[in-house]
């Protein structure tokens, strides 16, 4: 192998490498000389075997073949070289310019042929054409490759693209419409491209008007873009949410030429958002429908949540309360409210029970609970405030009723035990009375037997007032018997007569009785009391024992009259009694309220106890209200309670079941 001016390993595409295969060494040398002038890289082989072996290392683009090469024909050489390197441009050099040979060579794959003797200009021109052709082919390959790459990238992009990319004419005729068309709409790309179906047709009718409006802006304004979210009807019938970016494009002269855009499926996002919205609504509904006041604060005590119940109670709207300091937002509870800090700090629930809070002159009770919020690092607290006034009152009534039940039982048992000794006292006193008189024959007989002058005895006894004393024993005994009888009156059920009673009439009748009562007139100036009737017009009759109820009303009215009689009123004020009868929660309510001196808490709590009295000894047995209480609770299945504070008057409240099963 002859190697001239060459680095065979070079693969530089700029290098132009030529292989010369010729068995005529002189001719080959002259070719080398001629070609060397033009800067070609040249390798020379003098037989086929060498030529094949050089091909690999030298990697020539062009081969010059002497067509009659020693052994074997030049055509065979050509065929074998092309077999090894199909892209090799082979130029035949032939001494005998026979057309046949030339044609044969060209048919066998030669690119061109030259006649000997070689004209160097022809040789240069031919080689230039060869390399020109190679260059062009190279360019073509590069371009094709670039195109393939680009197409591949584009396909990949479209494949990964979760939306639809489109372009259409200004008349909205689609030019292309690619991407996740089928996933989003259920229809194929072709259906849109062919014009069988337009995207407009699958837009949900409720959203159509807004989209048409938006599209109108796109086709009528230059350089305009819109972002829009709307629903489409998927082929499967379901609605899906999409986001569309749409814009118009102008040509060089500034006229609208095209519309293009992208459409994404946002159904899941919208569903998630809707769910979040629903959840948020649900939570705020729950919080708002809570019967408790619920207030959330951050760690600095700034209000962040203020529910409807709190709005109702404070009269402060959530808008105004949010952002205020808690103590300023709830001034009534400023003393307790600061405990939320402690709850946050200790991370534990704190509770304040039965906090008294005066609202419009009325004492109300509240439970305040502080819940620390420690989730996910959000520091703060929820304050819950419950109005437990009713419950506190109910508890008091329950305690009262339990106490009364045991006291009542005790009193009844005691009364029973007292009856026997009372019978002993009364009977013996009566026998005594009888046996000291003179009208009974047995007495006369006994006097005669013992020598006693009955007349003298009688005058002695009268002188010493013995009869009066016996009389006193009997009358005291009888009074004791009456008290016991009173004490037991409520338990004698067989004496009761339940009839439908108009409570308003009965209460009026009782008031009239009190007004006529001579003692009441004399002692308490009851007729000077202003009496206000607040009777509900719609009031059903209530099944009860009229006489017992009258006794109850009488007891209360007497109690009030006495209290007001002893009270020193201001000059402007006068004794006043408010009588109310109204139905509430299936109960008939009777309220008798005076503006007398009222009671201390200690008195109020004991007012129904038997034998408890604040009146002087002799002016009352302390049984009136107690018996009243039992008549209401035991006989009528109702409740009786009292509300009172010193200097605030006293209100007795009786509640009777309206629908009472007939026993």
């Amino acid at each position, binding site marked *: 192998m002859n190697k001239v001016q060459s680095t065979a390993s070079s693969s530089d595409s700029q290098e132009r490498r030529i292989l010369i295969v010729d068995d005529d060494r002189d001719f080959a040398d002259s070719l080398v000389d001629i070609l060397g002038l033009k800067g070609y890289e040249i390798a020379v082989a003098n037989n086929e075997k060498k030529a094949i072996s050089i091909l690999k290392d030298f990697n020539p683009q062009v081969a010059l073949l002497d067509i009659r090469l020693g052994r074997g024909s030049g055509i065979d050489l050509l065929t074998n070289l092309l077999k090894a390197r199909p892209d090799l441009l082979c130029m035949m050099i032939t001494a005998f310019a026979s057309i046949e040979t030339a044609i044969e060579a060209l048919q066998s794959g030669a690119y061109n042929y030259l006649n000997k003797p070689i004209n160097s200009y022809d040789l240069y021109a031919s080689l230039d054409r060869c390399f020109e052709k190679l260059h062009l082919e190279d360019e073509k390959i590069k371009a094709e490759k670039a195109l393939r790459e680009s197409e591949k990238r584009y396909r990949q992009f479209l494949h990964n693209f979760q939306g639809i990319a489109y372009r259409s004419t200004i008349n909205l005729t689609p030019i292309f419409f690619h991407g996740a068309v089928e996933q989003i709409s259920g229809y194929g790309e072709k259906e849109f491209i062919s014009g069988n179906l337009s995207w407009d047709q699958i837009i949900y009718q409720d959203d159509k008007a807004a989209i048409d409006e938006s599209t109108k802006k796109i086709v009528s304004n230059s350089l305009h873009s819109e972002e829009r979210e709307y629903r489409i009807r998927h082929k499967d019938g379901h609605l899906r949410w999409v986001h569309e970016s749409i814009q118009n494009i102008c040509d060089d002269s500034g006229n609208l030429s095209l519309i293009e855009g992208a459409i994404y499926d946002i159904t899941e996002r919208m569903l998630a958002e809707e769910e979040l919205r629903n959840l948020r609504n649900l939570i705020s509904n729950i919080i708002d429908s809570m019967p408790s006041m619920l207030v959330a604060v951050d760690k600095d005590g700034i209000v962040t949540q203020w529910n409807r119940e709190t709005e109702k109670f404070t009269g402060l709207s959530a808008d105004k309360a949010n952002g205020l300091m808690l103590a300023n937002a709830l001034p009534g509870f400023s003393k307790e409210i600061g405990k939320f800090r402690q709850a946050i700090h200790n991370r534990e629930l704190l509770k304040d029970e039965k906090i008294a809070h005066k609202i419009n002159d009325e004492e109300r009770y509240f439970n305040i609970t502080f819940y620390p919020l420690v989730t996910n690092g959000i520091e703060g607290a929820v304050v819950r405030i419950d109005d437990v006034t009713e419950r506190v009152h109910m508890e008091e009534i329950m305690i009262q009723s339990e106490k009364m039940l045991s006291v009542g039982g005790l009193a009844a048992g005691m009364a029973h035990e007292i009856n026997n000794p009372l*019978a002993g006292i009364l009977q013996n006193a009566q*026998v005594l009375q009888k*046996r000291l008189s003179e009208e009974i024959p047995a007495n006369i007989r006994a006097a005669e037997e013992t020598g006693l002058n009955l007349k003298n005895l009688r005058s002695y006894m009268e002188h010493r007032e013995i009869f009066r004393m016996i009389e006193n024993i009997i009358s005291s005994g009888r009074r004791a018997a009456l008290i016991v009888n009173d004490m037991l009156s409520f338990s004698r*059920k067989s004496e009761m007569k339940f009839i439908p009673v108009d409570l308003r009439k009965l209460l009026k009748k009782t008031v009239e009785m009190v007004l006529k009562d001579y003692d009441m007139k004399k002692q308490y100036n009851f007729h000077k009391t202003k009496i206000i009737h607040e009777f509900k017009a719609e009031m059903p009759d209530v099944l009860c024992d009229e006489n017992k109820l009258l006794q109850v009303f009488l007891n209360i009215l007497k109690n009030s009259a006495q209290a007001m009689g002893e009270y020193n009123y201001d000059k402007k004020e006068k004794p006043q009694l408010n009588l109310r009868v109204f139905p509430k929660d299936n109960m008939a309510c009777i309220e008798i309220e005076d503006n007398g001196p009222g009671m201390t808490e200690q008195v109020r709590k004991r007012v129904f106890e038997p034998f408890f009295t604040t009146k002087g000894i002799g002016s009352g047995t302390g049984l009136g209200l107690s018996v009243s209480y039992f008549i209401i609770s035991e006989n009528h299945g109702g409740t009786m309670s009292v509300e009172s504070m010193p200097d605030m008057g006293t209100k007795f409240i009786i509640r009777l079941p309206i629908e009472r099963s007939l026993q």
Partner: protein
Amino acid sequence: MTKHSPTRVLIVDDEPAICKSMGNFLEDYGYEISTSVTAAKAYEIMETKPHDIAIVDLNLSAIDGETFILNAHEILPSMRFLIYTGSEEYIIPSELEHIGIHHEHVIYKPIPDLTLIVEAIQNLMQAGEDEHAK
């Protein structure tokens, strides 16, 4: 025994002060009185002579008043009964109603005036005579 012989009254009450004073009071009205603080003793007394009327307390020790009345009625069907009780409200059991005891025969302690007992005895005796006349 003739009509004019005195009415015999048996008083059964576990409190001697009540038992005795009741007896003393009625004695002075001419009744023939026996008293007992137990039912057992009362049966013994009944054996010695028949009584027209028994005034019976209900709360007796050992044998109670109701049982005594039922047994006494067995022994002497002609005997009439008054119940004298300290209970606040006595409901007459049907067995007693059956032998002719009704609410007018129940007197509650303490009786404010003992002459009421005398009236009750007279009424009972009158009723017995009316029945006899039929």
